[in-house]
């Protein structure tokens, strides 16, 4: 068991009388490129929220980067290098695209009110550096031409890229993407997938929840299938998609 | 300061609490379904009380006051939904909250413009209290209790025994459902606003019977009603009623300790303490459903 991994053991979650997660267990390498699928209502979103610390599970443990993070807040998990995006992009609509990225930069002394007034020189120098990094990521994500546009005016696909850029400012070890392809046109899907592949090659890990099975299968190396709150199958994408149990679950889920 | 004194204080608290509970129930219904705290609730209650006054001019008694007051308040509540709150439904709840404060001011301004600031009184006979052991029960108290309990029972029956009530609870549970089911949701909202207005009307007329009718009475009722609503968890009808009673009791029973000027603050203090311990309200759990 390597320390550089995300491991989920025995996670349970109930809402009222409904069991949403029923002892999910899996682990994936923190520098790998993994995908997660499952029919509607399988509990993916809840699991995602529990892994990132936005919800608390009733039972079970989450380990990340060699630590038990179960009791940590969402903010603390980010500090350990676990980044996330949202299913529906949650850009800061009134901030410009560049500001969205700059806001994400960690460890800014200008975020301290006193420092913002007392050490203008230091804050200015930091800002210049942060801006440079933000612009570099914007160029990488092909968003440089909209850097000064309010984020609220971007198209759906651009918002997905923006969210990715924002997470990248955190210099995370691993990023959890929640449906990065949902509502994005095929051309942009290709572009987003290309960026993810390149980032993965640079050593950033990904766990991607997605409904677009074809696009996901083409992107990831390893796939998990969740159904009725449990891990149903895992393995190479082709093998998983060929698994009769998985097909059954998807048929059943559709009915 | 014997037990008789305390029993009487507690009884006062219950009567006060019931009137607050009715307004709180109105607020909680609106919050559970339309998703914002309606600050105009108090002023709808005031209009109900004034409407009751209008029937006394033609010789109406308690029943006529209540009936007409409740009808007017219910109609007004629906009207406000149609002309104001419906158009705000797609904006953040804060927009509706601020607009409802504006509406409250506007209603009060219209009232004071036409009837002035002077107090009015329902011309009902004043009857002596009947002693029950140490307790002195006034006939109006019995009326207040009976009407309040009836109104509360009617609302709970509506919510739990009728098809539209079940749908109201479903919408309260899941706001997306409201969006998905179009026309049905409109019917739910119409019934809900009528119901909320009627409850405010009962609260206003009962307050008028107990005290005097003045344009400011509803706004003054609003703070304790809000406190009761939060205390019992916004959107929870049982909680709203118990919250109202709790605030009434806490205010009156605290007077031997904190005195009379601070007793209004006690309701708020209870609320603050509760929020520190249980930020989600006393009766957490999902909205109107459980």
């Amino acid at each position, binding site marked *: 068991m390597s320390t550089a991994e995300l491991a989920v053991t025995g996670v349970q979650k109930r809402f009222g009388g409904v069991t949403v997660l029923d002892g999910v267990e899996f682990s994936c390498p923190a520098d790998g490129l993994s995908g997660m699928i499952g029919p509607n209502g399988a509990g993916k979103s809840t699991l995602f929220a529990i892994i990132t610390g936005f919800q608390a599970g009733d039972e079970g443990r989450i380990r990340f980067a060699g630590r038990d993070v179960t009791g940590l807040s969402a903010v603390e998990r980010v500090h350990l290098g676990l980044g996330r995006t949202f299913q529906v992009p949650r850009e800061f609509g009134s901030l410009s695209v560049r500001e969205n990225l700059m806001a994400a930069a960690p460890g800014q002394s200008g975020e301290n009110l006193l420092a913002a007034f007392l050490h203008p020189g230091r804050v200015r120098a930091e800002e210049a550096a942060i801006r440079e990094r933000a612009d570099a990521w914007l160029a990488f994500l092909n968003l440089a031409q909209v850097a000064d546009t309010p984020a609220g005016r971007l198209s759906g696909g651009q918002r997905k890229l923006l969210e990715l850029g924002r997470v990248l400012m955190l210099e995370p070890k691993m990023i959890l993407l929640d449906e990065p392809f949902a509502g994005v046109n095929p051309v942009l899907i290709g572009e987003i997938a290309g960026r993810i592949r390149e980032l993965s090659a640079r050593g950033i890990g990904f766990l991607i929840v997605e409904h677009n099975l074809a696009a996901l299968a083409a992107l990831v190396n390893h796939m998990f299938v969740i159904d009725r709150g449990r891990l149903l199958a895992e393995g190479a994408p082709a093998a998983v998609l060929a698994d009769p149990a998985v097909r059954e679950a998807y048929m059943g889920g559709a009915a | 300061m014997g037990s008789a004194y305390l029993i009487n204080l507690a009884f006062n608290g219950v009567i006060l609490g019931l009137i607050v509970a009715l307004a709180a129930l109105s607020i909680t219904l609106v919050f559970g379904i339309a998703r914002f705290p309606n600050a105009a609730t108090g002023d709808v209650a005031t209009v109900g009380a004034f409407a009751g006054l209008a029937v006394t001019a033609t010789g109406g008694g308690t029943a006529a006051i209540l009936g007409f007051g409740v009808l007017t308040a219910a109609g007004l509540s629906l009207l406000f939904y149609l002309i104001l709150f419906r158009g705000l439904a797609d904006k953040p709840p804060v927009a509706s909250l601020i607009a409802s404060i504006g509406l409250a*001011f506007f209603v009060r*301004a219209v009232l004071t413009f036409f009837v002035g600031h002077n107090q009015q009184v329902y011309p009902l006979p004043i009857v002596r209290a009947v002693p029950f052991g140490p307790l002195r029960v006034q006939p109006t108290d019995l009326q207040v209790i009976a009407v309040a309990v009836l109104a509360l029972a009617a609302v709970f029956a509506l919510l739990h025994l009728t098809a539209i009530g079940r749908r109201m609870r479903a919408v309260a549970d899941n706001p997306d459902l409201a969006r998905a089911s179009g026309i049905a949701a409109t019917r739910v909202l119409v019934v809900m606003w009528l119901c909320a207005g009627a409850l405010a009307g009962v609260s206003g007329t009962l307050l008028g019977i107990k005290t005097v009718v003045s344009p400011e009475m509803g706004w003054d009722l609003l703070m304790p009603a809000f406190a009761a609503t939060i205390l019992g968890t916004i959107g929870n009808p049982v909680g709203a009623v118990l919250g109202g009673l709790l605030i009434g009791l806490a205010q009156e029973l605290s007077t031997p300790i904190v005195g009379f000027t601070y007793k209004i603050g006690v309701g708020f203090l209870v609320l603050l303490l509760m929020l520190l311990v249980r*930020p989600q309200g006393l009766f957490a759990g999902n909205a109107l459903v459980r």
Partner: protein
Amino acid sequence: MEAYLLAVAVIALIYTLLTLGLNLQYGFTGLINFGVVGFFAIGAYTSGLTVLAGWPLPVGLLLAALAAALASWPVGLLSLRLRIEYFAIVMLGYAETIRLVVTSESWLTGGVRGIAGIPSTSAALGLQADPTLVTFAITLAAVVAVILVTRHLIASPFGRVIRAIRDDEDAVRALGKHPGRFKVTVFVLGNAVAGLAGALYAHYITYISPDQFVSLLTFYIWVAMIMGGAGRIGGAVVGTVVLMVFVEGSRFVRDVMPGVAEVEMSSIRLGVIGLALMLLMRFRPQGILGTKGNP
């Protein structure tokens, strides 16, 4: 005429301070503060009592801002645990409680009788000049200072985060930043400005009593902020000017239109404020000047 306009301007500037403080909280950070008048009152009483006790005016102003900040800190912390609508109502109650304390603790505040004979700004500074002029100068300086500080703050990394919080708090958390720390700071800061405004008010009117600190003032300030456009510094100034022209203008309307029954003026004022709140929320939530989506 100049002196009268100057007097109106002083009140307008004091309101502008309140609007600027609220704008920082709601306009830039999305915090709902329905307790503005409470912190205004704390500032007024703190500075009034301090200067009456013989301390110099700057100490009074400073303590006023500090006291308001201190009083808002615990409720600011509470705001982090509460839903936004709960907090809105809690703040209404908090302002009312402050008024209740001021009313009841008469050994300190004079109770319902209030405090008379508070030294005016010029008296407190030992100047012979017209108190209105001195208050005007100090208040104007305060407004300019608050505007400059706010602008610097909004442009700073701190300001970027609070604007991000207004747009989406969960997304800020996903970036590894605690929204709470920022929200409490902004809440306390905005209320310190309200406290300062209260102090200037006390030394201008020179008499304060609980009756002067009712929730209507809070809503005046909300109207001013929303009219000018939440999240716009210039909007706070414009909104307050529009409000003052309306409130004071009604005085002159009566001279022109004697047909309007005079007793009903207060009803009309309240009604117009109410109508303005409704119409703005319904049709121009971004304010009179604001453009949609780009504050």
